[in-house]
């Protein structure tokens, strides 16, 4: 009896493992499929016109595409932005991520989540970038920063928008 149970347990753990492997594959496959779909949509466009920013539907997918399996840690990257944006069409924003090699600015409340991705080269004097962005509605804007060691940091800033800039 005990022997049988043990065997069964082994079988379940084996099938579990297989299932888990299949699940990871599924996720990757899904991402690849969506990437291919995107490329097919963009076929009439020349190669240099392809969007380099990931075109994904959900925030989770976007974070996964940047950070992979490493969960982003809070701190290490700051977003400089007024808490109240009068005009959602042009909101000044500064991302500061000391020692990061790459940062991504994300607006979860916009129709297109990824706003900007910056890669800092060897001649970047500081890992910071300032620009002006559009905000469709009040939301918590956040930034991810990849460190040379592979870790990922995260910073956020809540902003109230008076006039939305995405219509």
């Amino acid at each position, binding site marked *: 009896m005990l022997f049988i149970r043990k065997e069964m347990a082994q079988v379940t753990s084996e099938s579990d493992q297989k299932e888990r492997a299949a699940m990871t594959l599924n996720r990757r496959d899904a991402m690849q499929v969506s990437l291919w779909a995107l490329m097919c949509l963009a076929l009439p*466009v*020349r190669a*240099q*016109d392809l*969007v*380099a*920013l990931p075109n994904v539907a959900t925030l989770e997918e976007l974070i996964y595409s940047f950070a992979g399996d490493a969960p982003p840690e809070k701190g290490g990257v700051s977003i400089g932005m007024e808490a109240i944006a009068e005009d959602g*069409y*042009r*909101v000044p924003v500064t991302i500061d991520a000391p020692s990061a090699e790459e940062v991504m600015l994300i*607006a979860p409340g*916009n*129709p*297109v989540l*990824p*706003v*900007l*991705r*910056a*890669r*800092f*080269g*060897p*001649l*970047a*004097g*500081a890992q*910071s*970038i*300032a*620009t*002006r*962005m*559009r905000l469709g509605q009040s939301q918590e804007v956040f930034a991810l920063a990849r460190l040379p060691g592979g870790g990922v940091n995260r910073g956020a800033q809540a902003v109230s928008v008076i006039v939305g*800039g*995405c*219509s």
Partner: protein
Amino acid sequence: MATGVKTRVKLPKQVRAGEVVTIKTLITHRMESGHRLDSDNQPIPRSIIHRFLCEFEGELVIDLDIGPGISTNPFFEFQALVPGPGVFTFIWFDDDGAIYTDSRAISVMS
């Protein structure tokens, strides 16, 4: 190619070697997001600057992937390390295939 596109770059003409300078760039561009509708309720196709590059003598300073969430007339301010005299090159990539470039020479105080 979009008409009336103009690039602007602001940076010091002369620095000390090894100094970090602030560079401000702007390009006049509508940055049509692709999410707006025209008067007939038809979507206006996306037309944006989707990439910006800054290099100094072939070495990368900053490389930006840009989405439709960046405002009309995209403005960027960043820092660059100037190891010696040379030329900064700025490149903007338009959705319509156009590539706009600008460059600035910088000299070093003796």
